[in-house]
């Protein structure tokens, strides 16, 4: 039962990250493999504000802002210009890997290789349904719930959200129907970037200590969760994150801890091989 609880925590962090990741893919059709490096950079911004006296919950907003600004910048000044250059499609993936190297190791060059941790209290412990959870973990759940409900509300009930969905379904059609697609894409990157920054901070909070390359392996979990739910599908991402989060922790408990992430790898490869459009999705028109 306890591994179920950890699975939920892993899933909560992963859900925040994957929703942002999949939204970026939805509107720009880019697999932003630099996502993990923006997460960890945001986590460090939170850390920096935190060590200068701000409480972690206040500092978190700085991390969120960092994620939003950096992501917007990345799309506006790197991905979009490259897309306009009309190179072969794989170019963007290679560019995102390059950005990932710069982001991760640039950070490492600045902060060095040592581990840091936030100044925060873990809070009381709670026994809920046989799961042992710390106060911080409950807050992470709450943040995750608020984020997912807000995203649901955004996509379903706001003009911006509807325009985002229209843009991701068919950008040209959306533009012809009067949607300011450039603006919508920028907004999407700001919102998803904020999620990325938030995910980086809660990720660092949850793992206790972190360093510049800590989020490097995280991209595999992100990709697995995204492909499970269907690339570009925010609701699918939530489902994928839940499944992958539970699967890794439960397999760690019942199979072997050092193979725990193998399940995520296998899910990802299986989805790519047999259902690249997700478990519930189907192929899109040409």
């Amino acid at each position, binding site marked *: 039962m306890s591994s179920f609880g950890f699975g939920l925590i892993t899933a909560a962090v992963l859900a925040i990250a994957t929703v942002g990741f999949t939204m970026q893919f939805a509107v720009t059709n880019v697999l932003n493999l630099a996502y993990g490096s923006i997460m960890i950079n945001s986590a460090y911004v939170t850390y920096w504000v935190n060590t200068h006296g701000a409480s972690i919950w206040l500092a978190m907003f700085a991390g969120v802002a960092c994620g939003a600004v950096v992501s917007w910048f990345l799309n506006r000044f790197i991905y979009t210009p490259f897309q306009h250059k009309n190179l072969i499609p794989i170019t963007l993936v290679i560019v995102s890997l390059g950005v990932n190297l710069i982001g991760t190791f640039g950070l490492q060059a600045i902060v060095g290789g040592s*581990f840091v*941790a936030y100044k925060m209290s873990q809070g009381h*412990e709670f026994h809920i349904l046989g799961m042992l959870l710390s106060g911080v973990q409950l807050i992470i759940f709450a943040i995750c719930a608020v984020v997912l409900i807000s995203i649901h509300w955004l996509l379903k009930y706001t003009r911006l959200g509807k325009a985002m969905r229209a843009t991701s379904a068919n950008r040209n059609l959306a533009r012809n129907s009067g949607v300011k697609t450039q603006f919508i894409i920028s907004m999407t990157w700001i919102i998803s970037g904020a999620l990325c920054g938030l995910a980086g901070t809660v990720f660092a909070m949850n793992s206790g*200590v972190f360093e510049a390359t800590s989020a490097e*392996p995280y991209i595999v979990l992100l990709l697995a969760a995204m492909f499970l739910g269907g690339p570009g599908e925010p609701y699918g991402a939530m489902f994928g994150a839940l499944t992958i989060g539970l699967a890794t922790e439960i397999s760690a408990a019942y199979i*072997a*801890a050092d193979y725990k992430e193998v399940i995520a790898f296998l899910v990802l490869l299986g989805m790519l091989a047999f259902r690249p459009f997700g478990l519930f999705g189907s192929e899109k028109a040409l």
Partner: protein
Amino acid sequence: MLGPKYEVACLAATQEIDKLGGVLGHQINCKTVDTRGDPADAVPAVRQMYATTPNLGFVIGCTSDEASTVVPIFGANNTVSFCMTGESEFDAVKFPYFFRLVPPDAADAVAMVAIAQNKGFKKIALAFGNDAGSQTFVQPAIDGIAKVSGMSVVSNVTLDISATSFQTEAQSIVSAHPDAIMMEALGAAGVALLSEIYQLNGNKMIPVIGTSAMIDPTFFSGVTAAIPTATFIANFDADNAVASSATPAYPLFKKLVLAQSGKVRGVGNFSTLLSANGTVHLYDGVNIAALAMVMSKSTKGAKYKNDILKIANGVPGATVVTSYAQGLAALKAHKKIRYEGVGGLYNFDAFHTSFGAFEDAQYTASGGTASVGTLSASQLSGL
């Protein structure tokens, strides 16, 4: 080769040697070579070292990451090397130019069991990383535990050191209710595991017995960011090859190491190096090699390598010396010598490994280490 701990050892020893006129009239200089910890990168690094380093005396400090690839190259070039590796390869294959001042991992693991025995721990959890260096401890530890009556392994977890969270692993250890955890996990994994165990155990730490590699400033600063320093110190022991401040060689060593303050980057507090395994033993290694050169009147590895054995292991009637200066004077007086260093007496076996003695070390509040007891050879050999 790599790492500030090793570089300081070299600078400290050679400063004194050069002040005394060097070895056979040659000054000794230190040069660092970065192997990037990647076995494939190490070969060109070492070859480049040979190409750009005339009069190479000897090499110190290669670690488990690259030892297997570079030691044969040192052998082919008749270069004496002092390595800091516990790899079991070197218990099985003889390399004439290879010397190991630290015990192999198997002995290290036995020392951990001895600490547990002394502290009266019965139920032991094992938590080792899936990297090469850590995995070599597992089997010897299990074998050692089996020999102590009443002691048993209640949990054995292998950690994927690249994973990002270790909650389930931490939970499985906590729920096995061990008296102590034996562990080696480098990088974030060790820190994350301990901080999660601490949380899951109701903000109480389960005692931990680490390997000598867990005496590391980065690990200390990471873990004390997550666990209160006092709690951590009280519950953490590591086995460490003896580096006692009680040895006669220590005062000079201390003076020389502290004199390097600020000359090497990435160290932080230089006093932590006074008890660092690498600094202590490699300092001794440099002295032994220098004395062997003097004794054989040659800087050629092929000539002086046998004298290393004589000086370290001693021969009948040898005078014990505790510094390069003493040794130099004794050799000039045509006496046989045996070197007793900061790490005590050395004794190389047929594979050129010196097991030495072990101590039970704890961290101090500043991140240094202090010995809280030695482990007797008879206790160790019984395990």
